[in-house]
Each structure stands twice: as structure tokens, then as C-alpha cells.
């Protein structure tokens, strides 16, 4: 049993506090999954089913061949995934940026899952990371589990490989399936909440973070002026020369990488862009111009 687990249970604590967090779970910030509680939805609360990796609703979560949307229970959101019309499995995918401290360590993945549509005979999980452009290390092989129409807690403890990851731009990937079989489950749904990945051999209680904390973590990877709840989304450019202007948007959180930028509209032709991890600069072919509804994307 991990030391964090012992302390979380408020009983049977037999370890020194300064030992906690060395090689097993820490007391706080245990969960390496960002938005594992599905509380942040900058892109909207209803997604669509695409054939490839689609991130169009819950922050930090891709869906593949399924629509990821928000449902709530006692005002707490969770992920509701509806299989699309594809003759293959549907899953959601999460990527952790910095996981080198877990290599060679025992780790535990836990989450809760249910299905209102009869799925549950072959739920699935798979964990990997890329070691080169075309090769990956398997952390947790594709494995099935069973679940039902009420929340079931699924837990996997495994030892991480020691092979060096490829590096920047590639993460530790988690694949969570409602049905691992490659069949068409069009319209069938499954629900997931409280996804946690932590050091140690035991799943500790899910770590609920504040919305502000979780939002800031998500904005390292994605920031949308409208999605962040702003109602002032017109960014006026300042005169830079007699013929063009420059629009500067400071980002609220230092992003993982220089972000890809899009906007709902520009009032003049874009001459060029310079993006740092903290700032977006758009050069426009007019002495007076503006950029509306900026989106900055630095997802893995």
C-alpha cells in the first residue's frame, strides 16, 4: 500500500512524512492526468464523432470514432461518449507531457466507467509512449475488463518501461475503450469520470482540483478567448507603420510549445505571425485592423 494511500485513509500511518512522495504517491498533485475530472470544456460541451483523433469538447481529451460530450450527476460533470458509425473500436485518449520521472517506477491508473446501453463485457485500456517516430513502448498492454450500468472503478498497476521517450511533442498516451472489439457500436454510449494516474502501487481517492487550477493547467495546451469565458474578444491592432498594424495578444499561461493560432476573423489580410509560448503577434496589412476570437493550440 502506498504511503499516500495510508495517509489518505487517515489511519495506519507508519511512515515518516518526509518519505512520502519519493517513489510513490505524493499527498497533493498526485494525479498526472489533467482534466481527469472533466471539469474544463473550453471548446464546448458537445463533441462529434470523427474517424481520427478529435479534440472538440473536453480539454486534454481526444476522442476517436466517438462523440465526447458532457453529462452531469449531482452537478458534477463526466464524459459521455457516443459511438459513431464506424466498424472499429471507439476510445478516448489522453497524453501526459512530462513523465520521465515515472520511468522504471510502479504506477497506478484508475477511473470509473459505466454504460447505459449494455456495453461492459469488453471494456479496454492501453498505455504507451513513442520512443521514435515509428516505434512505441507498451506500458500497459491492451487489456479488457468488465463493467455495468452503475459506476465501476477500474484500476491497473504496472511498472513503466525504462526506454527513453522520443521527447518534445510526444506524450505518455492513455486509451480508454467502452468496447475493445473492432465492431460497429453505432449510437451506443459509455461514461467515464475521475481518471487518475499516479506513482505507487495503489489507487488513492480521486484528487479533485479547483476549477481555476484545472483551467490554468489546460491553458498550457489550449486557450480560446471565447472558451475561457471572455465576452471581450476583439483585439485591436496598433499602428506599426504607415501601411500595416500589429496585434499583440498576451496568453494567460505559458504554453507547452509555440502555439498554432487561428481566429474567427481578421479585418485585414494577415502578413505574418510570430508566436512565442507567452504571446501571439499578428501583422495585418492595414493601418487599422483587428483580430477576433483568437484560439491558441499547443496540444500534444
Amino acid at each position: 500500500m502506498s504511503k499516500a494511500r495510508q495517509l489518505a485513509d487517515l489511519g495506519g500511518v507508519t511512515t515518516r512524512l518526509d518519505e512520502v512522495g519519493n517513489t510513490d504517491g505524493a499527498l497533493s498533485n498526485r494525479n498526472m492526468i489533467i482534466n481527469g475530472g472533466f471539469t474544463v470544456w473550453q471548446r464546448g460541451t458537445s463533441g462529434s464523432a470523427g474517424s481520427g483523433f478529435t479534440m472538440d469538447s473536453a480539454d486534454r481529451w481526444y476522442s476517436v470514432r466517438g462523440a465526447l460530450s458532457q453529462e452531469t450527476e449531482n452537478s458534477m460533470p463526466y464524459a459521455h461518449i457516443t459511438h459513431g458509425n464506424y466498424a472499429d473500436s471507439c476510445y478516448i485518449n489522453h497524453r501526459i507531457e512530462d513523465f520521465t520521472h515515472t520511468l522504471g517506477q510502479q504506477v497506478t491508473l484508475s477511473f470509473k466507467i459505466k454504460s447505459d446501453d449494455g456495453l461492459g463485457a469488453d471494456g479496454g485500456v492501453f498505455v504507451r509512449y513513442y520512443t521514435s517516430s515509428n516505434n512505441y513502448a507498451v506500458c500497459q498492454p491492451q487489456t479488457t475488463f468488465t463493467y455495468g450500468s452503475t459506476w465501476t472503478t477500474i484500476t491497473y498497476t504496472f511498472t513503466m518501461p525504462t526506454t527513453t521517450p522520443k521527447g518534445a511533442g510526444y506524450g505518455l498516451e492513455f486509451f480508454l475503450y467502452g468496447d475493445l472489439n473492432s465492431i460497429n457500436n453505432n449510437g451506443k454510449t459509455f461514461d467515464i469520470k475521475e481518471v487518475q494516474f499516479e506513482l505507487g502501487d495503489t489507487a488513492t481517492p480521486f484528487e479533485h482540483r479547483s476549477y481555476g487550477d484545472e483551467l490554468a493547467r489546460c491553458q498550457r495546451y489550449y486557450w480560446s478567448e471565447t472558451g475561457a469565458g471572455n465576452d471581450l474578444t476583439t483585439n485591436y491592432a496598433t499602428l506599426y507603420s504607415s501601411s500595416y498594424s500589429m496585434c499583440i495578444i498576451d496568453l494567460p499561461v505559458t504554453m507547452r510549445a509555440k502555439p498554432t493560432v487561428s481566429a474567427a476573423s481578421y479585418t485585414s489580410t494577415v502578413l505574418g505571425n510570430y508566436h512565442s509560448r507567452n504571446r501571439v503577434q499578428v501583422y495585418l496589412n492595414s493601418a487599422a485592423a483587428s483580430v477576433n476570437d483568437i484560439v491558441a493550440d499547443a496540444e500534444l
Partner: protein
Amino acid sequence: MEQMNITSAQYLADPLGNNLHSSIRATIDGQELFVPLDPANRHYVEIMRQVEAGKLTIQEADA
């Protein structure tokens, strides 16, 4: 790896006149995006992967 449908890509010139590229204007999955020249950016990585595979050509910046 992630598959992106990239239908166009063009360098944007440096507006400050330093004879450099500032970014790439690309249409990816039907959306116009401005992609930084950053090897940690996933869109840039995929653009360069498709260029190396001979599936995509980045047009030079407008004069």
C-alpha cells in the same frame, strides 16, 4: 500517429523585412491555421512529416 488532412501550406514572410519566414499558413482539416516554425508544435511536425514523405509542398511566401 495522428493523421491530419493538410490541403495547403504557404510560408509567411517576416513583416519586419528580415528575409525570414515568420510562420506557415496552412489549411488543416478544413481550417485556416497559422503554424509556428517550432519542432515541438504538432502541426509543424505533421507538415514537415508530409513534406518529407513527398505528400505536401510548402509554397514560398508572397513577394
